């Protein structure tokens, strides 16, 4: 066993990469749930984003176009969910589960000819002397742009929900859709927009796995990250910065246990593999012991009665 092979700086830098898909998916779902919609289709939207991003990046040679396509793909699939739940008034839970199964199947179909290919790499940003700084450089200034975009989205969502009128209306719609309707707000329109945003974020998260983290295409490669994202939103008490902290914790333990496995530590591999899930859940359960505040209308079907 040799723990000296684990470099803390590289560990932190790689945990940020490991956490980004989860972060993107979870922040999108947070907005959706704040609007009162429970979309369990995150996994399906992620995998759809992963393959649409991968395919477009391979065909065009541009990772940027790939990410754009991933966001569009995720949003398109979520539009189906919006159609089912907001227009046809279908049950949120059943529609979300169906969306995941549909997304997994659809992505496998599109991805048939992409197995074993290598996507174009996205350049890491280079801030010259800043990136060359010891310790701080690799952690803060040596990543790809999408990772920063993820953090920026978290900050933007936090500010939107806290400081803007749009954020207030979104929270109001999620808290009590009948009252919001009585005051004359367009409940369905706001929810559809939130669902599309959530789909785009999940798509980006999926493409981050297939274009940067892994990078290649295999069936079902999101491997349950969408489900973790759903749990993360709940355990983070619907607070954006807690989502970030939870995602980094999960990413951190994931990377750490891989390093420990490589170092040959005398713990069975199965325990190490389950540790990210167990530790993240325990920490977030303890954090969310204060008044956990689910949006009042979460998952309830809205039907304007006039």
């Amino acid at each position, binding site marked *: 066993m040799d723990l000296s092979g684990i470099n803390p700086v590289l560990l932190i830098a790689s945990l940020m990469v490991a956490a980004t898909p989860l972060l993107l998916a979870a922040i999108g779902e947070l907005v959706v749930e704040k609007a009162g919609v429970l979309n369990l289709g995150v996994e399906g939207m992620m995998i759809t984003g992963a393959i649409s991003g991968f395919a477009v990046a391979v065909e065009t040679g541009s990772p940027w176009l790939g990410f754009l396509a991933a966001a569009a793909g995720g949003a398109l699939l979520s539009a189906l969910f919006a159609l089912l739940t907001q227009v046809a008034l279908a049950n949120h839970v059943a529609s979300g589960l169906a969306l995941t199964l549909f997304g997994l199947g659809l992505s496998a179909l599109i991805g048939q000819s992409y197995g074993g290919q290598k996507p174009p790499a996205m350049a890491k940003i280079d801030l010259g002397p800043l990136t060359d700084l010891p310790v701080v450089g690799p952690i803060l200034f040596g990543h790809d742009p999408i990772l920063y975009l993820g953090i920026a989205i978290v900050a933007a969502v936090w500010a939107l929900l806290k400081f803007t*009128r749009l954020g*207030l*209306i979104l*929270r*109001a719609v999620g*808290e*009590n859709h*009948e*009252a*919001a309707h*009585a*005051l*004359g*707000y367009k409940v369905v329109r706001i929810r559809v927009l939130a669902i599309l945003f959530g789909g785009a974020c999940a798509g980006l998260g999926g493409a981050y796995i297939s274009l940067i983290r892994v990078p290649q295409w295999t069936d079902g490669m999101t491997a349950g990250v969408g489900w973790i994202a759903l749990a993360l939103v709940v355990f983070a008490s619907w607070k954006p910065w807690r989502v970030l902290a939870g995602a980094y914790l999960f990413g951190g333990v994931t990377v750490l246990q891989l390093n420990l496995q490589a170092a040959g530590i005398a713990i069975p591999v199965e325990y190490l593999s389950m540790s990210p899930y167990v530790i993240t859940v325990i920490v977030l359960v303890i954090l969310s012991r204060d*008044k956990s*505040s689910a*949006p*009042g209308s979460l998952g309830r079907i809205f039907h304007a009665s*006039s």
Partner: protein
Amino acid sequence: MSQPLLSLKGLTKAYPGVIANNDISFDIGAGEVHALLGENGAGKSTLVKMIYGLVKPDSGTMTLRGDAYAPAEPRAARADGIAMVFQHFSLFDALNVAENIALGMENPPPMRDLASRIREVSETYGLPLDPFRTVGDLSAGERQRVEIIRCLLQDPKLLIMDEPTSVLTPQEVEILFKTLEKLRAEGTSILYISHKLEEIRRLCDTATILRLGQVVGGCIPRETTARDMAEMMVGSALKTPERSGRALGEVALDISGLSVASPAEFGTALKNLHLTVRQGEILGIGGVAGNGQEELLGVLSGEIPTEAEAVKLAGQPVGRMGPTERRTLGLLTAPEERLGHAAAPDMSLTENALLTGAVREKLEHRGFLRWGAARAFAEKIIAEFDVRTPGPENAARSLSGGNLQKFVIGREVLQDPDVLVVNQPTWGVDAAAAAAIRQALLDLAANGAAVICISQDLDELMEIADRFAALNEGRLSEPRPTEGLSVDEIGLMMGGAHGMEVANV
């Protein structure tokens, strides 16, 4: 007053199977408090929704200050100076007062300015309110202040109030009236909807009475008796429940030293409760909603377990028992919320009769259901309590509020309870049905059962209860005989006015 502020002409709105409003015409003058009276289902709510732009009329016109007025949405109505305080508060529990108010405004100022304007307006009208408190933590009276201030900040010309006093203590009602009178003096018109005829006689200048979607008349409330107005609403003579003298028996139910936390997030814990009810007695428990009524019902029904000795039924400790065991012993309950708590909305009346009647009416046998007997029981309830429904196979949801309430109360009364606990037995029920329910409770007590009636309707408690106690923040006042109890004393028992001040007019 030559030109009315708002005049309605021939407004009609039909829903599948029912004409909610049929050719409604009347005027609301400037600076006038206009009462809109009618039973449940008379079409009051639909009418105000049309004025507020939530519902579009099928035909008819409205004229506001001489110009045609047809709001496409509430936003347009608000822009034209029409504001509305809803019956079921349209507030967001998890948001704070200022955020709630901002949501009801077209162009809210930044939060800090808004907070100071809220303070300013709330003090002018004697409705003190902290802009940064979470609405979920406020009392019903305070929540209503939020709604009223939300309206006042927009400087309305017409304020619509849908049953504003049903959740207030007498002192709070007094303060509300002072505020409304101040508004009237400033030239604001008020359209006031209420069941409470004495309030209307005190406050309103004119009244329009609706019955079955049509205007059946108007009157000057000050010059009309409450009884006459009630009979115009109902369309027939009114029967008042009769109390018959009865002897009290043994102590049927005894609660001592009961303290229990609320299972609900914004609920109220019960603190050191003591009460006894004797056979043949009706104990009325008043108080503003959210002061522990739900919890008290939960404790008595068995939904909230307590220490065994805290609740005793005829001397036997039942605190640890669940609802079914208590039912077997003769302690029955009818909770407040009809759809979802007292009855399962999508199940038929037969099934709903089975849900609470299975044990006492022997509707099950070794785990198998006796559908024939259950149906007969449901039919008996429908017949004896005059429940208007095509038959027991209809879903509970399809009944109107008053009819379902008669069914829910009848279901418990007919099981011949030793102790019956009801919460808000006539809430949202029209005058005739309410009288029938009260009479049933009185008859039950006359036959020797003990009845606990939790209600916010003080007139109701004064009418049927032998003793009265009030719940305030989870504490129960000392029960006192209702005879000779004055409104002021009741108000004090209910905890006064929750820190409200009278408007500095």
